[in-house]
């Protein structure tokens, strides 16, 4: 293949089973059901676990009783996302990205860096763009959240930004695209006639490793003519 074969780290493995067999089927199967916790057990966890905080707690959230802290009684919150109000059980240390991706099933919002660097997780909170990977859900419980799934009209009609991004072939791999869409829409909501430089700055919190900035920028400027 003229030396164009991929770097293939799967080469060099013997054939055959990959892990040690675990005996007759089912014998060692531990849990095969979602963690199930009674209300009583949950409250007991709240009372008993006190102030246990793990070093990894900032990363994501939990339904684990060991993670529940004294404020857990406030975990049931109302969260308005894309115009729908959800009642969700959210620990105080949970990020908005986790809540919308793992509790509400809105996986359009991507997590690319976990550290407010890349912008793939950008959503709007009361019209202001925020990095949902680094925003605690409880901090935005009173705000209107809009994710990429809430940008198109309810009948599926695409927003001018989405349509222009398609026409300009702006997305490549597509992983940063939801964040680019949300940032662009937030800009045009506030500034329907941005200059090129204003548009660049509005998108400057959204990294695109494919490097498709030029096409995203063209898309924003084209959309600005249509909103």
């Amino acid at each position, binding site marked *: 293949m003229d030396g*164009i074969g991929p770097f293939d780290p799967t080469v060099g493995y013997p054939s055959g089973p990959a892990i040690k067999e675990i005996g007759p089927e089912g014998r060692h199967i531990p849990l095969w059901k979602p963690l199930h916790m009674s209300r009583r057990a949950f409250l007991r966890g709240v009372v008993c676990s006190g102030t246990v905080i793990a070093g990894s707690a900032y990363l994501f959230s939990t339904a684990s009783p060991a993670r529940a802290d004294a404020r857990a009684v406030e975990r049931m919150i109302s969260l308005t996302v894309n115009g729908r109000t959800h009642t969700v059980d959210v620990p105080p240390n949970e990020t908005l990205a986790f809540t919308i991706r793992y509790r509400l099933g809105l996986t359009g919002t991507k997590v690319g860096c976990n550290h407010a660097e890349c912008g793939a997780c950008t959503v709007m909170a009361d019209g202001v763009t925020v990095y949902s990977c680094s925003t605690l859900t409880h901090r935005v419980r009173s705000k209107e959240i809009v994710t990429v799934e809430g940008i198109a009209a309810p009948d599926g009609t695409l927003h001018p930004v989405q349509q222009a991004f398609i026409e300009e072939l702006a997305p490549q791999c597509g992983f940063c695209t939801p964040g680019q869409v949300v940032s662009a829409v937030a800009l045009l909501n506030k500034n329907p006639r941005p200059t090129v430089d204003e548009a660049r700055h509005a998108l400057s919190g959204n990294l695109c490793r494919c490097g498709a900035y030029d096409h995203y*920028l063209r898309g924003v400027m084209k959309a600005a003519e249509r909103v």
Partner: protein
Amino acid sequence: MAYKLIGKNFTPPDIEAKVTGAARFAEDFRADGMAHVKIWGSKMPNGRVTRIDTSAAERVPGFLAALVPDDVKQPDGAGQAILSSQPRYFGEPVVAVAAETEQAAADAIAALVVEMELLPFVVDPLESLKPDGPNAFSGGNVVGSGIDLQTVKWSGRDFALAGEGELPRGNAPLEWSFGDVEAGFAAAKVIVEESFVHASNSHHAMEPRSAAAYWEGGKCHVWGSTQSTAFAQPGLANLIGIPLSDLVFVAEYCGGGFGGKAGAYPLMALPALMSKKLGGRPCLLRVSRKEEYDNGYARGGFQGWAKLGFREDGRLIAADVFVVQDLGTTQGFPDFNNVANATSIVFQPESMRFRAVPVMTNTVPKGAQRGPGENQTANMIEPLFDKAAAELGIDRVAIRVINAPGGGGKDAKFGKAQGPVSSAYLRDAIEKGAEQFRWSERVAASRSRDGSRVRGYGVASAFHTAGSNGFDGLVRITPDGILHVHTGVGNLGTYSYASTSRIAAEVLGYDWSRVVLEYGGTARHLPWNLGQFGSNTNFTMTRTNWVAAMDAKAKLQEIAAAVLGGTPEDYELRDERVVATADASKGISFAEAAQKAIEMGGKYSGQQLPEDINPMTIASATAMAGSGLIGVAKDTLPKVGTVPALSASFVEVDVDVETGKVDIRECLTVADCGTVIHPMGLAAQVRSAAVMGFGLAHTERHIYDPAYGRPNARALYLSKPYSILDVPADGLHWAAVDQPDFENPMGMKGIGEPIQGSASAALICAISDALGGHLFNRVPVVTDMIINAAEGMPQSHKPLATNTV
């Protein structure tokens, strides 16, 4: 030739899902009872695990299971382990834990007790080559494609003989030459001799290498992030330990790969193995950005030396190149071979010697990254051409034109064997670019000042192989008349999975709205295709789709003859009908022909298949047998030459000599990619490749602490890929030579990689031009290097130090 679809823009079928958030990437997989997997990575750069105690982890509420190295199969030699008991770089996975929640999994990881014994380690290849230098791997320190694992140590004399800042050149396991190199140097008017360093850098794919899996009905279902849907499967199945037929694989989207997700990789198998241990329960491994830096992949770095001899007119008559490649901890990718290949085709030296020493270090595995070896070559060698041009007193475009292959696309010689190529129009690309950029006119402003800003111009070229052969094509016409093009190449974001499928539609004369692309997973019945890497897709996949469509065309003609009489040659395709050439009113629709194919059976509807196609293609075609007219064939079209993708870039910059800031004002890249299939797709690739190239030239690098062997560039802000504010608004331009390749039925070949390298090298040359000429033998050319150069100060780095600042 006038085409109906080729050369026209279109809307790829997957793009709307990307702008609405409906696109499902690997981490978007969800299932009831899904367990979360996390990994414990080595805290040492090279060590031996002496004890793993999971008892505390098992007490974490929600803990489900742990996998340790002994639980999983291990690769031979210096291969990359799924879980390793002798991790050879910081962050290499040792233990995996599954738990009810991601938090519980993280807590269990934190509760693990893993004791390790520290072994000697090395993060600089030259340190490993010293007489008493450590080996990164117990079995040796040098390995590579065609080079057996061995220990190579250079003598103290080898090191002492090298001048200050000069690459020592001891024994090299790879050495070859062509022509009379010494005679070439003896006849040279100007000889340029420099040592240089090219950094490693992360792929920075925005989507980490997350994966999910479960087992059901004896089959393993995997959601993975890969550039290659078909090509990834055999390796992944073997990692999981199952026959290929037991793998159900979904890879509909890939959030960036750039070579780092070329096929399958050990981490992709981990959720499947954990799921097996949990009796098939769904498992998700969400990989963090930090883990991407710890145990992802990176571009191979180089320490090198080159001596180039030029005739008075600028012709390169002798080249002597010596490179030491940083492999990381595995055999890595043979970037070193591509240094030789790129040097040979871009500059067409009349004589050349090449030596290489690929060395393992205790750093992350060095996989292929966009233009692996070729793009480093552009960055390392192109500045030397500027130096030669200055000494010869000739223009920088002129020295490249006189050396570039052209001659109607046919005069290029390639590599060690000086073999043929399928087409090469680099000279045309440079000349076209120079004219469009108005090089001669603009370069007069070189080094002009506006306050502290100084203008600079750069030109450079790059290469990558751009096509392969021997893979299969598979198309199907269903009784509703719809054409289904089955493509296993992968969906990296170039949209070439779709644009190359248009060849089948073109051959059969289809309206694009009546074509359905089948891609993204085993359930779509994929043929055996090469992956989406190596700039090969345009060439390779247009050939496979062409042969499959031609097979379908022949069958349509045969069916028409069977139904309407006469011979197949009496019929032609017109408006999705197969009609008599002599009387277009006599014919049948494709829909009717597809129904007839089902009735006729045999080869027409997939019950009888060609003997030379791959088992994967056989399985896919067999699964669809009887559902329509099947067109299936292996690409056995003639292919003699190496297929080269080539490009030339022109860059204008302003360099602020007080702050070191580089303001890229304009970049034009001209692509030699054969017939253009999808103009807007090409435009997007050319512009965006330049952005990635600028980062390679200017900011991106891996940094390891040499004292502790720990990576220090473990975040995007430390590794510095370019942002939108780093590139000019409306300043990235593209053009194509648009000359058809001789060995592709419709003239196509790839382009994805060199367009990064030429832009990168042109930026380096432009920065140097602004500052007064050839100045840097180190990539990336970071801001402090620019300030030091502008101030006439010595550089703060050691000349040959790598994996450091």
